[in-house]
């Protein structure tokens, strides 16, 4: 079973990375970029096939490890 956990910064939290990338895109001549926020994805392969169980497991993983819930949100998607 495959799943993807996407971790993004909460809105309002400073994103130095996004800011630097924004600037770099502009100086590369890529116009029209108003804002960039950088996040992470984790592509995870799991043994076992119970969708609901896997989802619960990954929420736990995100809470405990993959996301820093003080400043980040996450989203779990089981791809089957």
């Amino acid at each position: 079973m495959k799943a993807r956990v996407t971790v993004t910064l909460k809105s309002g939290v400073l994103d130095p990375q996004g800011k630097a990338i924004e600037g770099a895109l502009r100086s590369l001549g890529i116009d029209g970029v108003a804002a960039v926020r950088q996040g992470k994805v984790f592509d995870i392969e799991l043994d076992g096939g119970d969708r609901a169980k896997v989802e619960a497991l990954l929420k736990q993983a995100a809470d405990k490890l993959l996301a820093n819930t003080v400043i980040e949100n996450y989203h779990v998607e089981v791809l089957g």
Partner: protein
Amino acid sequence: MKAAVLVFPGINRERDMARTLRLTSGREPAMVWHTEHDLPAGTDLVVVPGGFSYGDYLRCGAIAARSPVMDAVRKFAAGGGLVLGVCNGFQILCESGLLPGVLMRNENLRFICRDVFLKVERSDTPFTRGYNAGQVVRVPVAHGEGNYIADGETIARLEGDGRVIFRYCGPDGMIDPDWNHNGALNAIAGIVNDGGNVLGMMPHPENHVEADIGSTDGRGLFAGLAEALKKAA
């Protein structure tokens, strides 16, 4: 030796590098701002120093590799000019396509600052003529992403052509996973391009050029370069 040291926002070892170039060649290098389109006339060595260009925010060296000055460096290298990239400089050279491969997070995912031992694989390059082949030198590393990786074909080519110049080793010169602090493939610490005129390396020879501060093991690289360039001139 007319060295040019590139300065990108966020670079922080440019002063260390400039001091070392001055100490070892007797000549003050030119500091070249990243927005420049040309290198100073007569430049015979380009140094891309260490640091955290652009905070290393996207991928290490990625944003700096796309600065205007790097076009000039590419041209300079294509004409056979000598280019040395150290630490972030190595990462920038890889990102700019001047060297193959990438530098990933250290295997233990932590930043590591310590002295390591390097085996100098060849002494017949302008960068290593100050050393003997097989010599072991002690120089510091200070990086979080120095784990060199490339695809199998590239590694085979690098090894086959003798383009691996420095390897992490034990004090006795043995290549041993225990002494490969960042997990680099084949313990690779430094490589050259196929022309042999562009060197990228993770360790900081520029921080070991004085007996009372660390050691003098890094001197060979700079002294060798100065000599090579004197001969060429």
